[in-house]
């Protein structure tokens, strides 16, 4: 019996052929209409050194960033900056390290979102220390351009490896309509007042007074550190060899949060998924009257609640005002001397008050160069946007997180215990004790 499957074979190969033909035609057509300049990789032209810059996407402000880069290229004739947008991913740093080790890395990284984890990249030996540049007489950037907190975000083992190019912190955001309905006339200035206000603002389970960052991830430790500092506690000792948050001050700081969950005035579950979007989602869905959030989310909040309805106040203090810095830092990677100098030139340009003002007005982030406070554009922007001024003023006393290799592990350990405490599965004392044990193990 001879099988005659030639018909189906013909059909199959014909179908395959059609598929390939369609695919190729479509791909060619699409590549033609991809529009604009393909971010190919510019080759060195005769006089100009190419400086390859990696940056994550900044969403709707990407075109502005492209424009600023082009302005830099046009303003001088020694360097051409080629900015390559990198995909966001969980393993971005591992990818960077891999690229560096395999000689496929960039010359400059712009706005790295995890600056305190830079230790791993530094240990590859590829990051250029910036002290010599900052101390040079002809540089427009000096150490004095930054607050201690700002410099701290990029200082490892006593040397400055990265500079903060985007500053972020957080404050108390509140729903003015809900405040009015509850008869509260001004936002709370201390945490004790906040707890009282939250009680007034809570309506059963329909509306909670406050949203606290319950859930996995780095947000809870990031917000909680301010509570700790505000209560007079310390996160680590002076030389970053021991954690010190398991202290009476630490317990006070955590109890301030867990008491609210216990009293039913804080939203009792996690909203830390990307689509729930934590504090932002809690307020846009009108489930919470107050929340801690950054300036860059004001746009979303305004759209959902109405710009007149969204109020901003400095984070209430326990004993003294305190704030944590969430900066994005930039750093130079080893290359030829020309490339390194080019990267430094670009970094200086990026941190000039004029550029900072333009960029930060568009993104909702905060300038890191102290000089920018004197820039006329920025000053008038702040005058028109008193809410942003709250965020900017907090920068003056903001601390940085410790810059050590083990920070990721410590933050993760603390995050797990904070979550447990806030879900009322353990007491604040137990939580801090467990976190200390895990953190100490990580530091070994």
């Amino acid at each position, binding site marked *: 019996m001879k099988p005659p499957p030639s018909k189906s*074979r013909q059909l199959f190969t014909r179908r395959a052929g059609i598929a390939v033909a369609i695919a190729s035609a479509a*791909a060619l057509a699409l590549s033609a209409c991809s529009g604009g300049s393909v971010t190919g990789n510019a080759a060195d032209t005769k006089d100009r050194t190419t400086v390859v810059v990696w940056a994550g996407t900044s969403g709707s402000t990407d075109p502005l960033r492209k424009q600023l880069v082009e302005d830099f290229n046009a303003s001088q004739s020694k360097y051409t900056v080629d900015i390559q947008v*990198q*995909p966001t991913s969980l393993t971005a740093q591992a990818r960077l390290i891999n690229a560096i080790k395999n000689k496929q890395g960039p010359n400059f990284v712009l706005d790295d979102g995890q600056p305190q984890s830079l230790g791993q990249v530094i240990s590859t030996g590829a990051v250029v220390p910036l002290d010599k540049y900052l101390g040079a007489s002809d540089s427009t950037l000096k150490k004095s351009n930054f607050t201690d907190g700002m410099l701290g975000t990029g200082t490892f083992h006593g040397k400055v490896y990265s500079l903060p190019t985007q500053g972020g912190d957080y404050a108390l955001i509140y729903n003015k309509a809900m405040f009015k309905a509850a008869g509260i006339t001004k936002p709370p200035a201390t945490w004790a007042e906040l707890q009282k206000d939250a009680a007034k603002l809570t309506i059963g389970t329909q509306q909670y007074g406050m949203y606290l960052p319950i859930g996995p991830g780095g947000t809870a430790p990031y917000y909680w550190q301010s509570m700790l500092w505000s209560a007079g506690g310390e996160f680590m000792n002076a030389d970053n060899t021991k954690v010190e948050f398991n202290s009476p001050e630490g317990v006070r700081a955590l109890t301030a949060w867990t008491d609210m969950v216990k009293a039913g005035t804080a939203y009792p579950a996690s909203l830390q998924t990307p689509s729930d979007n934590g504090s932002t989602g809690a307020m846009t869905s009108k489930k919470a009257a107050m929340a801690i959030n950054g300036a860059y989310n004001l746009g979303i909040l305004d759209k959902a609640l109405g710009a007149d309805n969204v109020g901003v106040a400095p984070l209430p203090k326990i004993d003294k005002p305190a704030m944590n810095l969430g900066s994005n830092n930039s750093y130079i990677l080893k290359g030829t001397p020309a490339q390194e100098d080019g990267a430094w030139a670009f970094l200086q340009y990026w941190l000039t008050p004029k550029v900072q003002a333009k960029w930060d007005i568009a993104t909702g982030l905060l300038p890191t160069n102290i000089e920018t406070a004197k820039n006329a554009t920025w000053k008038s922007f702040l005058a028109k946007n008193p809410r942003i001024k709250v965020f900017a003023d907090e920068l003056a006393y903001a601390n940085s997180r410790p810059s050590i290799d083990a920070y990721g592990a410590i933050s993760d350990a603390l995050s797990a215990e904070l979550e447990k405490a806030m879900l009322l599965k353990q007491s604040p004392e137990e939580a801090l004790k467990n976190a200390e044990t895990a953190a100490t193990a990580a530091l070994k």
Partner: protein
Amino acid sequence: MTHATAIANTPARPIKRRRRPRSFRVRARAFAPVIARHGLLIVGVIFFFGPFLWMLLTSFKSSSEALSFPPTFLPAEWRFDSYAQVFTVAPFGLYYLNSGIVTILATLGQIVTSLAAGYAFSRMHFRGRTVIFVILLAALLVPFEVVFTPLVSLLSQLGWLNSYQGLIIPNVPSILGAFLFRQFFVSFPSEIEDASRIDGAGVWRRLWSIMTPMAAPMIGSFAILSFVYNWNNFFFQFLVVTQSRYYTVQVGLAQLQAENNSSDFSLLMAGSTLAIIPVFIVFLIFQKQIVSAMSGGLR
């Protein structure tokens, strides 16, 4: 009982037949299987496809409406600019070209090598066949997230980072494919092949003229699955390629996500929809292949 005798045994005229029309109940019972089948399938479609319907609708919403609570189903205002934006934010046309090249070639490679290997493991006898097969099976258990560092170093030493061959060749071997084809051939009656072997056909002849056509349904199925896998192989592509000239669609999609995903949800939905469409088309083209059986031509 053969067909012939069955006919012979049937009376010329049914003995007692009620003349009145069948009752509704009887008719309903006859249709019940059909209704039940469609009912179950519709439930299935709602469950499986529902979220994508929502994805499609969201891609036409403005970015603030996209993540609003309470959610809206149909867009309040239909906005098409997300789709245009996908192509301006990043050179997605180029990404499609790259994805197309990489996926098609890797899929073809997978089909050819897996068919050959599957046939060899099932129908041919050579020393060590079992041992080799089991070792290769172990390779399935290797999570890529774990071994990628030495793998990337290896690719770097070969100079294959940021290249098409680096994206394609490590994905050509498919033990899953070999396993699949092996299972397929094993459960196949061997008469046809034995017959042609007796007729004097050698290995290559048998493989090309007989086994491959017989395996058409499995080739079709595997082609789809292989295409899907290679098209969606984000993590590998993300690590091997750092120059945007070689980015694929999946890497491009990741480019659309900012640190906090909410910044442009409708853009991401538009990008995801665009990423799914080519695979969907491939599926539609090949799905008939799945059910073309050997006997009786196309079903």
